[in-house]
């Protein structure tokens, strides 16, 4: 089987020669710096290729975010941090030399007026700059190589995810109650945008999966209720499902982060058949998930925190997910980015042990 065939068959629960060998989640920048200090060979330029893993679904080069692109603009900088405007127009602050998420200082949409202006300026689905360059040739090349091709990508492809870039966590979540029409309008328009761009791409290149980056769960569960998910996201997901069916795209994946258990049912109903990363720290056990949701493909579920321990602890953690692996529809992988308390030696141990676990020679 080639990487594409193995990936699709795994997600659909069909027979495979072996489970995919993926090193999907990479290191934080500070983890990479640590590995360089610890003697990572200079010829190793990314966390994957030196181990010859299978190819993960890769997004076609396109732009489903703000178009024209918003240039990163530094507003202030000192020894500790840098404050800047990012590619969505968000004012944020990053710490230097530390593994950390940004501090989000201001979001571009606060009300209907902001939204209408932003939509008109940056979110025209038909802007020809959304698909330009050699995307078609790239896609045809990947098809010839048997690599899985994806529509949708982080950070510009999620019904909730991109909505959050516009309004922010707190104001966005409150808007579900205080400005529901605006939330509907934003999510409906984002979906229109994705479908418009994907339609053009799918007419030229055979896509294998659609990916939605949402990050709408945390350790305690979803940020919004299943009812709200059904009201606001459900109809848009069903439009995406219909698009997928028209183009014989058989995989729809969602990156939820956290614990998505209470959203699994509405997502499955709306066409999702692959979820990740199933964070152990959020209480996700892939063995339990495998039995509870037999039609849902899973990826992740290996506790990233264990990589900071001993090789024996890493082996034990990999052994823990064997039941899910034996049941199928499971791609073993870490449950998020690799923290900077993980040594280069431990990462190599993990990558080799995972390779043996899935039976890749």
């Amino acid at each position: 089987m080639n990487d594409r065939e193995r990936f699709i068959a795994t997600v659909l629960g069909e027979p495979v020669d072996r489970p995919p060998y993926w090193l999907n989640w990479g290191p934080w920048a500070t983890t990479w710096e640590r590995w360089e200090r610890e003697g990572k060979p200079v010829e190793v330029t990314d966390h994957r290729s030196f181990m010859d893993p299978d190819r993960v679904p890769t997004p076609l080069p396109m732009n489903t975010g703000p178009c024209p692109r918003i240039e990163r603009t530094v507003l202030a900088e000192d020894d500790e941090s840098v404050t800047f405007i990012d590619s969505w127009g968000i004012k944020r602050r990053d710490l230097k030399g530390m593994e950390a998420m940004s501090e989000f200082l201001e979001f571009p949409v606060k009300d209907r007026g902001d939204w209408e202006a932003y939509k008109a300026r940056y979110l025209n689905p038909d802007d020809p700059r959304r698909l330009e360059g050699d995307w078609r040739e790239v896609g045809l090349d990947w098809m010839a190589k048997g690599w899985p091709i994806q529509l949708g990508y982080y950070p510009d492809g999620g019904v909730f995810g991109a909505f959050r870039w516009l309004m922010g966590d707190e104001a966005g979540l409150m808007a579900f109650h205080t400005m529901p029409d605006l939330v509907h309008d934003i999510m409906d328009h984002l979906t229109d945008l994705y479908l418009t761009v994907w339609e053009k791409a799918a007419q030229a290149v055979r896509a294998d999966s659609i990916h939605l980056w949402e990050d709408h769960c945390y350790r305690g569960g979803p940020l919004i209720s299943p009812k709200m998910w059904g009201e606001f996201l459900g109809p848009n997901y069903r439009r995406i499902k219909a698009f997928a069916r028209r183009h014989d795209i058989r995989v729809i994946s969602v990156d939820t982060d956290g614990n998505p258990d209470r959203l699994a049912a509405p997502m499955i109903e709306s066409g999702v058949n692959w979820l990740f990363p199933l964070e152990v720290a959020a209480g996700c056990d892939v063995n339990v998930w495998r039995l509870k949701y037999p039609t849902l493909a899973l990826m992740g579920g290996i506790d990233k925190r264990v990589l900071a321990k001993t090789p024996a602890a890493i082996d034990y953690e990999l052994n823990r997910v064997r039941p899910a692996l034996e049941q199928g529809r499971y791609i073993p992988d870490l449950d998020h980015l690799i923290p900077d308390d993980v040594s280069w030696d431990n990462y190599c141990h993990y990558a080799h042990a995972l390779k043996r676990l899935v039976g890749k020679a």
Partner: protein
Amino acid sequence: MTIKQAIYDAVVNGDSPAADRLVVEALAAGIPAEELMQEALIAAMAEVGARFERGEYYVAEMLVSAHALKAGLKHVRPYLTTAAVAPIGTVVIGTVKGDLHDIGKNLVGMMLEGAGFRVIDLGVNVPASRFVQAVQEAGTDIVALSALLTTTMNSMQGVVEALKQAGLRERVKVLVGGASVSQDFADQIGADGFAPDAAAAAVLARRLVAPAEATT
């Protein structure tokens, strides 16, 4: 329906304009601020926390309720000061050094406020020395520490150590929470408690100050 019940409902339902208006009306009608605080606002947030724990409310609902609480609280607070009705305790809260994540910390702060605490929010990326300074200045009962990442969790231990070195550790309780934090980790660093979510943090904080509360 009494006006106290209407305020309670406004907070539980996350209706900020109603909470704002009704508290003003209630105070104008001569209802004591303490009564509004205890029987309407705090009681409502306790119900919000209970609904969250039962899985009936999610973060979105907690946020709108917390904002409705704030809308009412701003009118009640000046009366509480003049009536010398003390909050049940003071909490210094912050996201530890090296970490900029704040939604969890903000939500916990709101729930603590709704549980009757005075909350001093130090913000994000807070060094241990700043927590120590705040404890020295504020007559603090609880230090609440938030961290999202596995590596910044270690800064929590730094705060506990800094409090010890300043001779303040026995004066305050330390609560910890965040995406990767667990009860085991709390025990390991010598914290007094771990809360998996904002509602649990409010319940735990009340429990930790309960002996003092009982004597007032």
